[in-house]
């Protein structure tokens, strides 16, 4: 069952401007070491990852607040080239609290824009009465509660 969606778009030029600021610090304030290493200074790739973080924060229903911080949402690239979200700290806690078992990230960038879309899949489903069914990892019903 889908329990959250979020999307975001960031201008690559805007990212370039931010990176060019003489006082710096933007990278460290937003991205993890692994993200910075993977992006290798590419404004296009950083814009895409920023959009991914923001989209994920929206899908959590909090944005970057309520304990969900930039470094709590890590967008990492797999060997296949696809990117995935890794939760940490307050973001992980929030994802667990709302019952998210998977975060599906789709993102793309060209020379102008980085765009990301995140769908959160929950552990629960609903039966014909509208009650929530929570599953374990074997898809066995673990808990049943009344509709939210």
């Amino acid at each position, binding site marked *: 069952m889908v329990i959250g969606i979020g999307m975001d778009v960031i201008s690559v030029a805007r990212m370039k401007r931010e990176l060019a*600021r003489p*006082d710096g*610090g933007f990278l460290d*304030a937003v991205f993890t070491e692994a993200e910075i290493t993977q992006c290798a200074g590419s404004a296009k790739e950083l814009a895409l990852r920023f959009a991914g973080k923001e989209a994920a924060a929206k899908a959590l229903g909090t944005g970057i*607040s309520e304990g969900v911080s*930039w470094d709590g949402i890590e967008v990492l690239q797999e060997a296949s080239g696809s990117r995935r979200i890794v939760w940490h700290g*307050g973001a992980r806690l929030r994802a667990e609290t709302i019952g998210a078992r998977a975060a599906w990230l789709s993102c793309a960038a060209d020379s102008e824009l980085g765009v990301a879309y995140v769908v959160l899949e929950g552990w629960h489903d609903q039966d014909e009465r509208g009650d929530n069914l929570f599953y374990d990892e074997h898809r066995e019903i673990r808990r049943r509660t009344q509709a939210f």
Partner: protein
Amino acid sequence: MDEMKQVVLEYVRREYLEEDDDREVEVDTPLISGGIVDSFSMVSLKRFLEKKYGIQIPDADASPEAFDTVESIVVLVQRFGGK
């Protein structure tokens, strides 16, 4: 406090209003809910405040509500020792 308000106000006007943007920004103008400052801009605004006033604002306290007006920003800066 008035001087701090002026510094923050000038920064917001300079950094976040486009040249052709004729919106008036005052100390009580909603910045985030008004679409002037977004999450991306909040990062640079928070860094500006920390450098300018020699403070550290924890991410947990850098909420959209705390950054929504120049007045609320100044309250936040002072809460963390900015003078």
